[in-house]
């Protein structure tokens, strides 16, 4: 018997997860989609489609994905449920993989599909509302385009999604009660602490610092103007690589180790 992976057993597990956790998993996914749709619709009215696209994508993917990630391993706020999950005759790897597939593959691609659909609808509605005889028709038409899923904003959101979702999966295996709230607080503390520590170190090294963003840019005052000290392209690509690939791999990998070591 293969104690690491069996396709048949994994199939049973996925079927069980979907039917047993229909409400929490699919419910959370639907909630994220609904919030994304509402946010897009409202922001479009108030600030226009380009802002709505960026905001809704961030709300739906990194934030929604983080919420879904907190649900997939949310077995441990109840003794009976946690015990049942850990003693189910399935390997630790398969249990972990079920969570990874739901968050990293299912939610990720479902969200992209959903977002493309609503984006297409809103953009088409905007375009159809334009007056083709207006002298500004071409500018107005080109001002609003479909959100690029390979553009800079999308890539930053993918990076945030894989980092935050990994952290949340790890957090939901550390905290038995209210894992979403506790992990979200831990992430906020980590970000604020990194920001402040970075600012402190930069202030010790450079004078006239206006603001400093970790791993990206330091703004300094030069007289009454401000200037940016950017990372060299070489270091920037290293940092990007770390945030895009190394850190997510660490967080998602650590969640496998944590699940293996989980005592309950």
């Amino acid at each position, binding site marked *: *018997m293969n*104690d690491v992976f*069996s396709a048949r*057993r994994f199939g*049973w597990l996925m*079927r*069980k997860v979907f*039917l*047993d956790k229909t*409400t929490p998993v699919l419910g959370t996914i639907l909630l994220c989609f609904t919030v994304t749709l509402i946010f897009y619709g409202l922001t479009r009215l108030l600030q226009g489609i380009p802002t709505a696209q960026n905001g809704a994508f961030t709300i739906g993917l990194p934030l929604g994905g983080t919420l879904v990630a907190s649900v997939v391993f949310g077995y441990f706020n*109840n*003794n*009976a*449920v946690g*015990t*049942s999950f*850990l*003693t*189910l*005759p*399935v*390997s*630790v790897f398969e249990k972990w993989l079920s969570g990874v597939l739901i968050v990293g593959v299912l939610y990720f691609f479902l969200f992209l599909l959903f977002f493309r659909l609503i984006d297409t609808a809103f953009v088409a509605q905007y375009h159809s509302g334009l007056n083709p005889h207006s002298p500004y028709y071409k500018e107005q038409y080109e001002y609003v385009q479909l959100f690029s899923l390979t553009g800079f904003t999308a890539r930053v959101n993918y990076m945030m999604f894989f980092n935050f979702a990994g952290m949340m999966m790890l957090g939901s295996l550390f905290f038995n009660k209210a894992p979403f709230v506790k992990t979200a607080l831990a992430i906020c503390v980590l970000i604020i602490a990194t920001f402040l520590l970075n600012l402190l170190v930069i202030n010790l090294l450079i004078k006239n610092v206006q603001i400093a963003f970790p791993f990206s840019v330091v703004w300094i005052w030069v007289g009454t103007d401000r200037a940016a000290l950017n990372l060299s392209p070489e270091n920037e690509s290293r940092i990007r690589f770390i945030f895009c690939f190394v850190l997510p791999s660490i967080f998602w990998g650590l969640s496998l180790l944590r699940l*293996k070591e989980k*005592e*309950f």
Partner: protein
Amino acid sequence: MIRFENFCFGYKPGALLYRNLQLSLESGKIYGLLGKNGAGKSTLLKNLTGLLYPSSGQVSVNGFNPSGRKPSFLQTIYFIPEEVHVPALTINSYVALWAPFYPGFSREMLDNYLDKLDVKTDHKLNKLSFGQQKKFIIAFALACNTNVLIMDEPTNGLDIPSKKRFRKLISSSMHEDRLIFISTHQTRDLENLIDQVIIVDNGELLLNAPVDIIGQKLSFKIVEESYAAQAVLYEEENMYGRAVVTANIAGGESRINLEQLFNAATENPEMVKAIFKN
């Protein structure tokens, strides 16, 4: 077979609950684990199922190390915790989702056990009362035909007729390859059911003896007020007079009262250990 060798466990480093526990359990028997609240009963069971890991020493269940939580191990053991959870599924859906993980599962047996425990429903399981849910899980666990069945306070939440049915069902489902380990503090629920009694207190093993040996080594009797013939391990006043537990020096066998046995072991652990040492 279950084996604890030099088993140590503590929830906090430096504060061990169990120290160098040596314990061996054989297949073909029903073991009753007795202990006060917080004595470490559930801790012991969780170490058996791989939900907790020993601080040092070894736990082995039919040759498996439970901490690995391998599927090949988990499909041979079923653990029913004190609080059970059933999803919003019908019996058929539950069986369709859970049973494939247990190769020995028998639908026929499940239906038979459900019938014996008087669990009948076409509705979703989460609509049942807690007692009915627990009976369903007990029936399902038995129908999985695992070699080891571990139950933590299985009779909590069961009504009086159900407790009787539970005892009958456990007895009838027993066979020589199966080991059933039942933890409880409701000693009366295990009377006439278990083959061997294990008593723990503060992480210490006070007694591990078969019921027949206990009957031979200890005497449970009603005596007169002035009785002072031998050292009394435990005594209490009840409606029949003064009930005492003493060493059995007269020979013969007396009917075991698990509650009195438990009190004797926890109040006079050294005397009880000395009696069962030989």
